[in-house]
């Protein structure tokens, strides 16, 4: 009896020792020696993390098809690691913070932040790798796109080239515009829409929302038409005077916006639940949102908007021309991990994603005959039930290499390209704010905004009583320090330019 227990004891102890030993083994991480290009490439496996709306059921088949191409071209296999948009930030934060190995990761400014992760040392600098492994890549996108991706003069991520501009304006239900004979040419400023809102309010049922607003407000999507550009969520510059950062919530434009919203809200033009509304798609999908304000009126967008509006036709009424800034470019990119053991091969793979049509369309649409069928040389029909409908070409690479999906206007691609090239470029293209010196301030400001913005920006409360309080709280939270830091960094950035 006794002996047995000693055995158990010894067993547990040795198990513990083994576990510790394993841990020691996992630590070793050596960077692969940089081999000469011309030699035969040894086979490697790359891990690529990216987010989608939902994880495709048949990802395995697509991975196989992708690997067939990559095996042949760069002697590498790629593990496609898909997450949902909601999980991606949490998941990748954990992965990089724990030093887990991966090679390529999708990154952006609205999900898993490019700048923050770079400042914490997550990514590899890519300039040399691009020069060596992907010389053609530079030419596939305009220079300003590359500028936008730079952090202190260096590239840390390759943009997926797509619509890189924004254009602000109204999205209006066509049936109402027709019914009330809306003269779209008369609308130059956002407040010009008011007579139309009045007509809808008076002429339509209570279910119809004349002007849809939600808890994020609309001010943040009308900076450009207000002559502003935002550099983060609180500080921005006037387009006329891009050297002087200022508190966006102290501008006369903001006050004006609030006054108009308050007026509309009291007149009943804005949905009553706006200040607490999180998911405005619940209203949009019923087709009852008569007028919305958007910042991304892109070529061909009416088609997408029609689907989102429950199949009701909509018209775009732009208030601005196409405009490109850092923020509009770095919305989708691929970066290479600092821990990657095969950065060269990772770069080659990114290069293929952006230049190899075959590979790119496989990852976008899956396997021909199974996930899609070809209608003509460049047009396909997606098989929605085959388990691979990522429906997000912009996650993977250069979207201009994609096949057209049946029903899409073939002219859209050229229009987009043209708009990208002709768009007004921000004077601060490429500038990025490193918030490390003011983390505490940014954190506190975020909660102040959470508290005041929904009520103010939807007109639910009177700006005359609340705006001052909001501004004071922002000051208390340290917004002036952030503005000063911004000014300092802009100065420094100009020196490196």
């Amino acid at each position, binding site marked *: 009896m006794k002996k047995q227990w000693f055995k158990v004891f010894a067993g547990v102890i040795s198990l513990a020792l083994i576990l510790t030993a394993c841990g020691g083994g996992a630590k070793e991480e050596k960077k692969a020696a940089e081999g000469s290009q011309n030699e035969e490439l040894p086979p490697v496996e790359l891990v690529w993390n990216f987010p989608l709306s939902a994880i495709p059921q048949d990802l395995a088949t697509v991975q196989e098809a992708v690997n067939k191409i990559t095996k042949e071209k760069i002697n590498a296999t790629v593990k496609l690691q898909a997450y949902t948009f909601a999980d991606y930030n949490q998941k990748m934060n954990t992965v990089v913070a724990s030093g887990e190995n991966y090679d390529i990761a999708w990154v952006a400014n609205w999900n898993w932040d490019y700048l923050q992760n770079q400042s914490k040392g997550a990514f590899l600098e890519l300039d040399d790798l691009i020069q060596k492994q992907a010389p053609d890549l530079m030419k596939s996108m305009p220079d300003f796109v590359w500028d936008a991706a730079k952090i202190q003069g260096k590239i840390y991520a390759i943009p997926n080239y797509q619509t890189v501009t924004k254009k602000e304006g109204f999205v209006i239900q066509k049936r109402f515009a027709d019914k009330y004979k809306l003269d779209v040419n008369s609308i130059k400023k956002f407040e010009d829409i008011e007579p139309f809102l009045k007509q809808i309010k008076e002429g339509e049922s209570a279910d119809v929302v004349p002007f849809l607003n939600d*808890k994020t407000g609309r001010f943040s999507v009308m900076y450009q038409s207000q002559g502003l550009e935002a550099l983060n969520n609180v500080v921005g510059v006037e387009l006329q005077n891009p050297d002087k950062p200022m508190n966006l919530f102290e501008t006369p434009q903001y006050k004006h916006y609030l006054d108009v919203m308050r007026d509309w809200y009291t007149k009943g033009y804005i949905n009553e639940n706006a200040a607490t509304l999180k998911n405005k798609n619940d209203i949009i999908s019923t087709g009852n949102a008569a007028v919305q304000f958007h910042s991304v009126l892109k070529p061909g967008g009416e088609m997408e908007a029609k689907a989102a509006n429950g199949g009701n036709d909509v018209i775009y009424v732009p208030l601005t021309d196409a405009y490109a800034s850092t923020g509009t470019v770095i919305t989708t990119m691929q970066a290479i991990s600092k821990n990657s053991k095969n950065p060269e091969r990772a770069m080659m793979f990114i290069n293929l994603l952006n230049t190899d049509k075959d590979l790119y369309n496989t990852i976008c649409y899956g396997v021909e005959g199974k996930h899609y069928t070809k209608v003509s040389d460049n047009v396909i029909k997606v098989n929605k039930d085959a388990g691979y409908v990522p429906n997000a070409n912009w996650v993977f690479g250069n979207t201009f290499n994609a096949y057209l999906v049946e029903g899409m206007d073939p002219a859209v691609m050229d229009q987009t390209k043209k708009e990208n090239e002709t768009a007004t470029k921000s004077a601060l293209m490429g500038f990025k704010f490193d918030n490390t010196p003011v*983390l505490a301030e*940014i*954190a506190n400001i975020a909660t102040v905004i959470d508290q005041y913005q*929904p009520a103010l920006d939807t007109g639910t409360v009177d700006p005359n009583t609340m705006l001052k309080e909001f501004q004071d709280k922002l000051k208390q939270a340290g917004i002036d320090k952030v503005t000063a830091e911004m000014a300092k960094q802009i100065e420094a950035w100009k020196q490196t330019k």
Partner: protein
Amino acid sequence: MLKNEWRHFKRNRDLFVMSLPAIVYKLFLNYLPMIGLIIAFKQYRYDLGVFGSEWVGLKNFEFFFSSDTAFIVTRNTILYNLAFIVLTMVIALTFAILLNEISRKWIKVHQTVLFLPYFLSWVVVGYVVLAFLDHKNGFLNVILGMFGEEAIKWYEQAKYWPVIIIITQLWKSVGFSTLIYYAGLLSIDSSYYEAAKIDGANRWDMIRKITIPLLTPLIVILFIVDIGKIFRADFGLFYFIPNDSSFLYSTTDVIDTYVYRSLRVVGDIGMSTAIGLYQSVVGFIMVLLANWIVKKINSDNALW
């Protein structure tokens, strides 16, 4: 001395072997990872790692303690937790004792029903609450309308929310605690009651003199565990049930939701670790205090 201890150890050897799995398990899954707490005092950089990152002292705590909201959210957290602790205990104990009085057939039904809400996630419960409180179509406003009262914008009126939050929490969790107490009741030796019956005790006497005292160790355990969490709040409850409405922060914002919102933009794990550590330390002090008091009253009931 060492020899003496070894003799003691040998006598306790079998029991020690029995607790060994837990010792090893907790060492690996809880204690070793606690080394990571040093991140709270560092400017964590991924490429430098936990040990290589630069020490920054208490800088990571600054954002929380420099804001004037810290007081409000801390107050909310403590008050809600106190309310939960007291109400859950009283109600669950009452339910358990009452359940013990009725026929077995029905207990099954009641207990199942009381427990059902536990299976729904807070997100789903959030939709349920919305169904009751929605301004336009919510049940409560429909009922108010039937009585000719004016509809209330529930999600914009902070004053109602302490009650709403407490009811929701009780609704979801009281079945859980009732089950614990009920199981505790079942393991009370029935001979105690039989003896009391012979002595002519009435039911109330028995509850007071037998049931409650015998359940006290269990009550104390649940109480001390809850005290340890008094600076922590159930994120799901306080985030999804008020639907993150900005009008309600004054009464619904707690430490966990506040920290979540402040760090959503900066996403710094040093700062989140710092607040977690703060919550732990305060909780630990509270627990030591609670255990000390319990020990003063009756050392048998103390946890250690």
